[in-house]
């Protein structure tokens, strides 16, 4: 059996163990560096550049990003196997956008799959279909972000229109190869009206096999990192949505679709 894929190299900026809000069970998240979008609310701004960066954290300079092999990542992933076994968890890829490093992402998922560890990926599907197609055979759960149905507004807040992502969402759903969940970051001033959420939910509802949608309330915990990177946070005045408002959006989704709707990951 060939295990060449264990030597594939990629660039990550963190591995976080005991993650319980992204996918089923207790998971280890590997954060891949580099993103195609520049969402103004991004809580991991250090994930956006592919290049290795310096960030000031509590007065100290920290190097963000390191190049590793699949085998090196798997060494950490393996450590929590008892927890995956008991909880139905596993490895989750996040970013950045994992699809910016399609071979590395594929081989990480493949390596996990090969040793019986469940796989998930958080991604907005913003890549050529070939990249996604290569990954699907190794992916149990696709957690797909859909941020807005209006391409123009999408572009203003993230830097890109939404056409490619929506197209890919349909293809992923049609493939039937992975369990697809839709997640919506609820960002005041961007997409937090009932109409905007309803539009996303209707789109998701029409995707074959999609049964659930997650509304993720905006938080600003990444705000301090912008200064650390010498950047300006462009949404300084936005407050996280109130619980009542989130509940209202949830009811909206449930009234207009047959999706199960959850608040939070």
């Amino acid at each position: 059996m060939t295990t060449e894929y264990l030597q594939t190299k990629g660039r990550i900026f963190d591995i976080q163990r005991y993650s319980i809000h992204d996918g089923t069970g207790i998971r280890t998240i590997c954060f891949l560096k580099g993103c195609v979008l520049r969402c103004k609310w991004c809580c991991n701004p250090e994930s956006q550049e592919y290049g290795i960066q310096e960030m000031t954290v509590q007065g100290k300079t920290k190097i963000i990003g390191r190049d590793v092999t699949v085998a090196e990542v798997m060494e950490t992933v393996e450590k929590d196997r008892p927890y995956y076994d008991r909880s139905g968890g596993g490895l989750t890829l996040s970013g950045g956008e994992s699809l910016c490093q399609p071979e590395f992402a594929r081989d990480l998922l493949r390596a996990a799959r090969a040793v019986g560890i469940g796989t998930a990926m958080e991604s907005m599907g913003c890549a050529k279909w070939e990249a996604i197609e290569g990954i699907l055979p190794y992916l149990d759960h696709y957690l797909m972000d859909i941020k807005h149905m209006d391409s123009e507004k999408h572009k203003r807040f993230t830097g890109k229109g939404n056409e490619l992502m929506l197209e890919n969402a349909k293809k992923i759903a049609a493939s039937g190869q992975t369990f697809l969940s839709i997640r919506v970051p609820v960002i005041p001033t961007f997409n937090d009206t009932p109409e905007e959420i309803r539009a996303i939910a209707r789109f998701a509802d029409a995707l074959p096999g999609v049964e659930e949608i997650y509304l993720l309330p905006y938080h600003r915990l990444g705000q301090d990192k912008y200064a650390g990177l010498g950047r300006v946070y462009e949404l300084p005045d936005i407050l996280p949505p109130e619980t009542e408002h989130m509940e209202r959006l949830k009811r909206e989704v449930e009234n207009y679709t047959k999706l199960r709707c959850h608040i939070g990951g």
Partner: protein
Amino acid sequence: MAKYYTQEIPKTDRIPRLVAHLYAKMPEIESARARLITESYKATEDKPIIMRRALAFAHILDNIPIIIREGELVVGSSTIAPRGCQTYPEFSYKWLEAEFETVAERKADPFYIADQTKKELLAADAYWEGKTTSDLATALMTEETKKAIEHNIFTPGNYFYNGVGHVTVQYDKVLAMGYRGIIEEIEEELDRCNPGDGDYCTKSQFLKAAILSCEAVIRYARRYAQLAEKEAAACTDSARKQELLQIAANCARVPEHGAATFHEACQSFWFVQQLLQLESSGHSISPGRFDQYMYPYYKKDLEAGKLTRESAQELIDCIWVKLNDLNKCRDAASAEGFAGYSLFQNLIVGGQDKEGLDVTNDLSFMCITASKHVFLPQPSLSIRVWNKSPHDLLLKAADLTRTGIGLPAYYNDEVIIPSLLSRGLTLEDARDYNIIGCVEPQKAGKTEGWHDAAFYNMCRPLELVFSNGWDKGEKIGIETGAVEDMATFEEFYDAYKKQMDYNISLLVNADNAIDVAHATRCPLPYLSCMVDDCIKRGKSVQEGGAVYNFTGPQGFGIANMADSLYAIKKLVFDEKKVTLAEYKRALAMNYGQGFDAVSAGEIVTEILREMGRNGMAVDEAQVAGMIAAVMSAELPAEEKKRYEELRAMIDEVPKFGNDNEEVDMFARDVAYTYTRPLLNYRNPRGGQFQAGLYPVSANVPLGAQTGATPDGRLAHTPVADGVSPSAGKDVYGPTAAANSVSKLDHGIASNGTLFNQKFHPTALSGEKGLENFVALIRSYFDQKGSHMQFNVVDRETLLDAQAHPEKYAHLVVRVAGYSALFTTLSKSLQDDIIRRTEQGF
């Protein structure tokens, strides 16, 4: 039909009323017991000690004031004041007299004491001069041992000054046959004795004393029956009148006879629990497997239609309230270590029976519900977990955990049973274990485990390596050579082991001296008649009457010592970045961090307190000198800089708690320096010493007695808690920390290990949160961890962390998969988190 009923049973209105009544006032110290025991002792000086104990117990039970509190269904109170306490001068009394004027004002666990009470206590105490267990224990210790205690190498304070407690008796036997049955058993044994037997004199005295004790308990219950009848006659509320008549009927029958109903079983259980406490003052008198021995009575009444689940739940809730009615006044320093008026009455549910079958039942669930209903610290609720524990039970337990009450604690059958087997228990007994106090396993009704025999500070012997056996100007350890001359890590580590071995031998001496003092001056005939094989052997548990005998002192500071020794290995010997001479000075200088007035004052106060407890006086000039000495040390800038470099280097060395194989294996070995040597020692009851690794909350006060350590920890700051990693040193989250901790050998620490984890409530929110939480426990236990308990961070904690960030440097919060150190966030972000904490997402 399902094997057990899992639905939530509602709480009755009675329970909040009972709780409110119990907590209406500050608890009070009463003098009745001290007065009565002294009267009795004065009248029995010509009698054998075991008989004097029984006569005194009877005199107390016949005369102590009794009361039925408003709305109670289960009765029996040792004090008139709710949550009051009696005193126990036969163990020690001077500390209380010294604290008469401050005990009501102190921060930790204050008690009101009336002037009349003070007078009565002084009058009674006068008799006890030189007659207490602590007086005798002191006389029995070697000078070296007393020196080691004085220098805080270890603290055997618990049993030095108090009754032992720490036992689970045969509640099942009392419920089944009543004290009448036990008296018959003792009489039969007495009939078998022949005056010509070698042990006749002691055995017959013990057996007669046990009979006297049982008779006294029967008479005490009858006093309650009469009181209830009297109150019923005067009661105008017909519902309450009926309740009082039922109480009267119950107390007339139990605990004299076997319980015929669930209500009688509850009453019988309670008299046992209450009166054990009244006999000897010990804490951690643990009800054990309540869901097992109560079940037959519940099942019988439920099936006969004589009991509803709701009324059974109410009775259990009533017992939970009563467990908080018992109280104990400790000296000021101990009260800080045990803050919260805790009696550690451990009650455990679930697990397997003697034959290895899971025996979770309705009551297992109802006990968890009772803790939720009553929401008070007692009982210390525990749950036994094994591979076949029902998932429903764990979910129910997790649901209690997330309320933030800090209960239940989770225990792993898969580690504890083999561990007990290795200590000589039979398979049947090991499977039937329960927990005593905090984390200590034993077989109920057969064990005198002395489970909480001392706190042993593993950091202090390392200080003695650096000082070649000297401490605060006195030679207290052995000489292991000048540390500067040690050429290899092995040589250094070996010196540590030698200092450990020496001090462990003194620890044993201290415990054994106290053990002999209890056997000589305070054998307990009442407790002993409910522990096998006291009746057959004709001696009390204090004299070795129990089937299984242990002494379990607990070590703490594992994480600090693992990190310290590993840092020395790496920095001094492997990388040669610093010399031992330099390290030695850095530690003495507290890494150049100095001490401000407040911390200097605190340090000296801690030292003085401890000295006071050991009966040492210090004058004001000496105190001022101590504070000045602590605060002086101004260092040259260059030296200070070097220490900062050193601390930065130490910071870079991997630490225990991060799932680093090399460090974790090292920690495992360091733990053996305590757990292995102890196994070589025996106690006067013919049993073995066995180690525990758990400091309760004493890691803070005991850390205050410890200088700077080579892991970078500053002088007098807390040491690590239990087997947990040092605070803030585990940076890869709960799974990595749990993996590291699971790599210690929990089996050899057969007196228990304690692993505490802190969670932000979002980790447990929703059904998914509970499932993942249960999976976390299961996975730690799969890897052979022994015990786990959880603090759920609440809003108040976060507000406190905002106000006092220095106390919460390591507090991790998680929001929607995003985790951060709380104190590093800006105020407005912290406010977001506090808001989300309330919302639970």
